[in-house]
Structure formats: C-alpha cells, structure tokens
C-alpha cells in the first residue's frame, strides 16, 4: 500500500491549529495576513509537508474550486457531513484563504440522518464561519415518507433526489460542488469533473462534453447547471490519509464505539433511534461498531470494528476486502442503479 508508512509517521499534535478555530479566530486568520507580511510571524512549521501524491490531489482540487468560483455566478457546495464532505470543506477553506469560503453549503436533511451528524454539521458551520443552508422536502415531510414505511428507493427519490432538485432550483445555483469520487462506483468512474446538467437536472452519460487537460468548459445557458467534483481522482485511501495528514475533524461515527444494532438483510443496522422497530425474531445486539460511509441510518450498514483512532481506521482499511459501498442499501438494489439515480438528478 502506498504511503502507509509515511502516514503513520505524521505527528498529530498540531491538530489544534484547525480544530480550535472559532468564528473569531477565522477572522483573525485573514487579519493576520492582511496586515503582516513577515513570514516569520506565522510559525512556518505547522506540520510536515504532504507527500507528493496527496499534494498533487490537493492542488488539483483547489484549482477546480477556484475555477468554478470564478466562472459561475452562484455556486453552492453540497455538504453531506461525511468524510468526503469534510475533506471537501477543508479544501475549500484552503482554496480561498485568506478569504472566506465564497459560497454557501447546502445540506439535504432527509430527517433520517444520525443525530451525531447533525450536531457535527452545526459545529462546523459555527467554527468555520460558513453560510449553511439546510433543506428538507416539505412534501415528503408532510406525507411522512421514510425508508421503513415507503421503502429505501422511494425514500431516496423523494427525500434526497427530489429535495436536492427543490433546493437547487430555489437557490438558482448554477454550479454545485460535490464530493463524489470516481473510485466509488462504475458509473462515477465515467463522470467528468465539470458534469453538465439540463435545466431539469438530468445527466446524459452518453453525451458528456470532452474534458481535456485541466481546461474546464463552464459555458452554460440559463437554467442549466454544472456539478463540479474536486475529489474525482481521490481514492478512499487517499481521503483517509489526507484526513490524517491535515487533522481534519470528522463525525465520531467513523470511529468504533459501543453501539446497539441488529443484523438485517446482511447489513448491521443502528438500532438506537426511537423510530427503530425490531422485526419479529430480530435480536438487538451490542458491540463495537463504526461506519465507513454516512447517510440515512436505516440505509447505512455499520461494520464490526475496534478501530477507535485514525491510525486504526486506516490500518483496517488497507486490509479491507470489500468496498466501502457494500454497506449501502441504495447501491445494491440493482446493477446500474447509481447511474439511473444520477440521470434523474441524484448527486
């Protein structure tokens, strides 16, 4: 595995440079640079340099962020609170430093997210002085749509895909950043960095614009939009190694903790929400559990794990024999289901 040794050598002690930052400090950040130009005033040795592979990925992502921010009138960043979103947010802050992140973050709340995710989201918005927009589909909320009563596919359609379309239309956003990676899934592997969408948010995978070098075509008509993916070329291992190298804060769900769960359809389902109902014959178990991806808790399978630190999570990952999407109910419905969802406007 590339770089695992290097990753292990990184000291963690300067994590506080970022995690301690609050609203006040982030303004100071800017202030420091606007008034002082002596490099020695800011301790130049805040952390060891990134290895060239991660550095190249970081540079590429920053380039994409800046290009979209400069070319589009009204960009937004999809923020789904997971590890990829956390990396995305960190890169956005880097890209526009010493300025603020110049666009809002949009979270589509289905009402079925882990409470730890919501708490984390609000903490980040506060700490980094972000404009956070939260949207829940009012129709779905009114009709009480959920994964148990209506099935995972319908729930996802209404509470995620439809909700996203509503929020993007309401905000008149002409560009939306997402944290999707090409290594996640076979149809994602085909997607451009600037992924063109029709006015009704459709993706046409058979007619994507050619995308040569790092020259991106941002020409669109009114109503059309672009989804931009700064993390396209990152793998899951890259994400984790970068989180470690940069001390990026993550929701605690990524670390193993004693949690209550049941085994349902081969998936370990979190069972601590009041809306959780055991099926006949189902045993609530208790044990060390963590999550490789985050989403709606009824659709997100946990894994048995003892990894309570980043080092341990990465060590487990490097010997993992199944992919990260394995725990996700939405991808298992049928082959090509992700492509279908994306064509309909799913992120």
């Amino acid at each position: 595995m590339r770089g695992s040794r290097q990753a292990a050598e990184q000291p963690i002690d300067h994590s506080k440079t970022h995690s301690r930052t609050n609203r006040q400090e982030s303004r100071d950040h800017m202030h420091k640079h606007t008034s002082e130009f002596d490099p020695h005033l800011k301790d130049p040795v805040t952390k060891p340099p990134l290895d060239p592979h991660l550095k190249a990925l970081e540079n590429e992502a920053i380039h994409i962020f800046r290009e979209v921010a400069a070319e589009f009138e009204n960009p937004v960043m999809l923020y789904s609170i997971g590890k990829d979103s956390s990396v995305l947010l960190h890169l956005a802050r880097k890209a526009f430093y010493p300025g603020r992140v110049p666009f809002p973050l949009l979270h589509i709340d289905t009402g079925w997210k882990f409470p730890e995710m919501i708490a984390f989201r609000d903490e980040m918005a506060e700490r980094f002085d972000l404009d956070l927009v939260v949207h829940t589909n009012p129709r779905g909320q009114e009709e009480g749509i959920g994964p148990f009563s209506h099935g995972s596919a319908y729930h996802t359609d209404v509470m995620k895909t439809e909700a996203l379309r509503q929020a993007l239309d309401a905000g008149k956003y002409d560009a939306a950043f997402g944290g999707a990676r090409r290594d996640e899934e076979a149809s994602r592997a085909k997607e451009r960095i600037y992924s063109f969408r029709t006015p009704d948010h459709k993706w046409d995978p058979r007619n994507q614009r050619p995308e040569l070098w790092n020259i991106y075509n941002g020409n669109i008509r009114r109503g059309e939009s672009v989804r931009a993916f700064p993390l396209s070329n990152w793998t899951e291992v890259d994400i984790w190694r970068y989180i470690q190298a940069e001390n990026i804060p993550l929701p605690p769900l990524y670390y193993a903790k004693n949690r209550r769960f049941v085994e349902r359809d081969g998936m370990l389902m979190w069972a601590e929400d009041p809306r959780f109902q055991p099926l006949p014959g189902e045993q609530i178990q208790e044990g060390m559990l963590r999550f490789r991806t985050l989403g709606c808790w009824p659709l997100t399978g946990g894994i048995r794990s003892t990894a309570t630190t980043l080092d341990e999570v990465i060590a487990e990952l490097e010997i993992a024999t199944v992919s990260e999407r394995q725990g996700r109910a939405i991808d298992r419905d049928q082959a090509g289901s992700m492509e279908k969802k994306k064509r309909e406007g799913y992120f």
Partner: protein
Amino acid sequence: MTAPANTAALAEVQDLPEAEAAKAVKDSRPLRLITCGSVDDGKSTLIGRLLWDTKAVKEDQAAALSRDSGKQNDLGLPDFALLLDGLQAEREQGITIDVAYRYFSTDRRSFIVADTPGHEQYTRNMATGASTADLAVLLVDARAGLLEQTRRHATIASLMGIKQFVLAVNKFDLVSYDKSVFDRISHEFKELALSLGVRQITAIPMSALKGENVVYGASTIMPWYDGPTLVQALELATIRTATAGGFRLPVQRVSRPGESFRGYQGTVAGGSIKPGDSVAILPSGMVANVKQIVTFDLVRNAAVAGDAITLVLDRQVDVSRGDMIASLDGQPMTGLGFDAQLVALQPGGIEPGKRYWLKAGSRRQRVVVQPVSQLELSSGKWKPHAETLAMNAIGKVRLSFDELAVFDTYEQNRATGAFILIDPDTNNTVAGGMVTAKRSDLGGIHREGERVLLSLPADLAEELMASEAFAARRDDVDIRRISGQRSNEIFETPD
C-alpha cells in the same frame, strides 16, 4: 513539534535543482496512462484483468462481476471489461462509450488509468483521456494487425504529447502464440512510431483475457519472449515534470478579502517563483516583483509547477482573471495569430471563419480558425485542406484573435500550450488543440471592411506592386516609406 519535521517542512519549499526535484517525486506521484486502439481489441478487458491481478477488485465487486458476466467467453473466465464498462448503454452494447478512470497500485508505484473507447464515433472521449496521460498502452488484435483507428489513436496520443508507448499485441491466445505474428505487428508499429517521432516503445505479446504478460509472465507458453510484462513496463515508465522553463501563473481569481490584501490565485503552470522575483503581467506587459507567496498552511519561500498558490505583488498593477503572470526573462509568446494542431471532436466539425470561444488556462477569448491542412491517416501525410475539418479529423490550423493571446508552444509547456474550442451555439467543447508557433503573417483572417498594415523591405514592396492583383486595386492602397525603427515601434504597440 519535532526537529526532523521542521527540516522536512523547509526542504519542501526550498528551491530544489530541477533534476533533483524530479527524482524526489518520481515514485510517489501516480503514473497516468491510457489504453487505446481500435474497437474490441481488448482495452477494457486488459484493465479489468490488471485490476483483478493487482487485487484492486474487492470481494463484493468480484461477486457482482461474476453475477453480471453471463456467457462472455469459452474459458469460463469473468468478463473483466465489465469492471470498466459501467454505463448501462455500454453493458447492453458490449462496447466502451466513455472514458473510465481507475486507480490501482503495485508495491512500486500507483497508477491512474483511463480506459478509452475504441469506437471511432467516440474519439473525443479517447482524446479526453489522452490529454493528461504520460504513457499510452496501444492495443492491437493480433489477428487484425494495425487498423486505421489504431493509427488515429497513436497519432492523437503522440500529438497530445505522449512520448512513451506500450504496444500490446493482444488476443495472442487466438494466433497460437505465433512469434512471427508478434514480429510482424511490432515491426509495422515501429515504423508508425518513427513517423510520429515516438522513440520509447515496448512491444509485448499478450492475452488480456487469460492474464498472460499482464501482471504474470507467460514464459512456458511463449518461451521466445523475454521482455517485461505490462506491469513491469509501467513501473519503469517516467513522469514528466513541468518545472523547466519560465514561471507561468494563469490567474484564476483575484482575492480581496480586505482592503489591504490583494492576491492573485492560480496554479503554477511552469517554472518556479520566489519572493523578490520580477514578473510581467501578460498580455499588458506591466512589470512587478513578487512580495509574498501565500498558502493556507504557511507563507512559502518558493512555489513550483503544480502548486496552487496565492501571489502578492509589491505594487498596484491591473491584474484580472485570464491574465498570465510570467517570469520577466523567459516570457511566453504574445500575439494575435498562432499556428496550432487540433482534433475536431463533434459532428459539426470545425468550420473556417466561424467565431469560437477559445479557452486556455483561465483565459477565454474569441477566435477564428482557418484550417490549413489535414492529416491523412493511411499515409501519415499532411494534405492541404482549407474547408471544414470533419469530426475526428486531425488538422493544422491558424488561430486569429481579436485581442492579444498568450501561449507557449505545447512542446515547451503542455499547460500553457493547450486550448479547447467551444461552439458558442451549442456551448459544447468541439476541439482540443496544441499551439505549435506564433504566427507573424496575417493570412487567413480576411474580413470585410478591415485593413492590414504590412511592413516590408522596399525591394519586396516594389516586386509586389508590380503584380497584376496589386495594380488592379492600386487605388485601395496607402503607401508610405518609413524607417526600420519606426516600423518596429508601430508593430510593438498593441492596439
């Protein structure tokens, strides 16, 4: 904070000699490669097999693969191409339509591979993959040999700056592992490569499906072959570095978070920079010095090609998005006319006289394209061609701008010599191009109502005036004798 970390941090931002910098990064940056060649030659199967044999396929993905495979071959092997052909239309038709990007690694290095479609209709997607690659794996079906599409792909790859080729003579299991077939095809390819100026070639007889000479050798079946497997060849390939040449920073955006800070944000596209260096802002030509290089992590004392930075200058100058900040000595070319090669990517082709958008770096401007010649793939010869360049054509063209454009040649700098053309009617990307030279003549930009100022030696002027065409329109012409120095002054001033 430990002392070793300290030195490491400083080492990174110091101005390393170029050769050393290249050596230091050689193995940890991924090698970018493409597979290309004619339709059905086994490109996706090869990459699928490569992922399989390097253990990059996880258990759940392997289970999905055997579930989806059906009866694809008589060998009882899974259809490895399905690991790549992820779109429904691709699975239905059994072909690749769009480029897929995959990531894998061996003990020695990591790779980003772009599996491109062989079908001629989707050449644009092959070009997409080729534009960023360091190496091309060109596949040939051992039974068919080199086809026109093989030549097209080899040509596009080489035009786009790929200097290293692996020739994979594939489906070797279907020609009884016959050495003479391998010799014939690799000889034929070497001639093609020579005409393209490609010198680094590794030819490998292969069965992508059975995994022979992909990750594992096949010496029992092909004892006569003692060259590397595909993976060995890839591990030995080199990655280009763009640190040579002058400093280039295409300005993406101007950062003004407060009254006293003004920074120019962009990705260094060539060379290196440090505080105190003198730079020119192009196309205006204004001069300033670098005051500071700002990044989120630290104020750096140097930046090199590839770094995404924010540059602060020592004085108030007018810099906006699309400008290029370049080292004062060793500037790129600035002008209204350039020669270029391009690949036409869409059904409408590239029309002479039409005004396109050209995007290069962060700069977008209007351009008129005049085709000059077109490459004939069967002979490898450039044939005069002034009409529309049809889809998939490779042409030499002249670019004429209304406003000054800034380029290096693609040969010198891949980042500042490349451009795309956007059709203003459809907004689609219709061509990918590479600048070959700045043009000093103004041929091909004839437009109604415009005038052209020529400055030529008096004897040549006399000759021209004696011509029939000139004499016929003598009344339309203004002539004045001026000094060489005055002529220079006029032509140096941009209008």
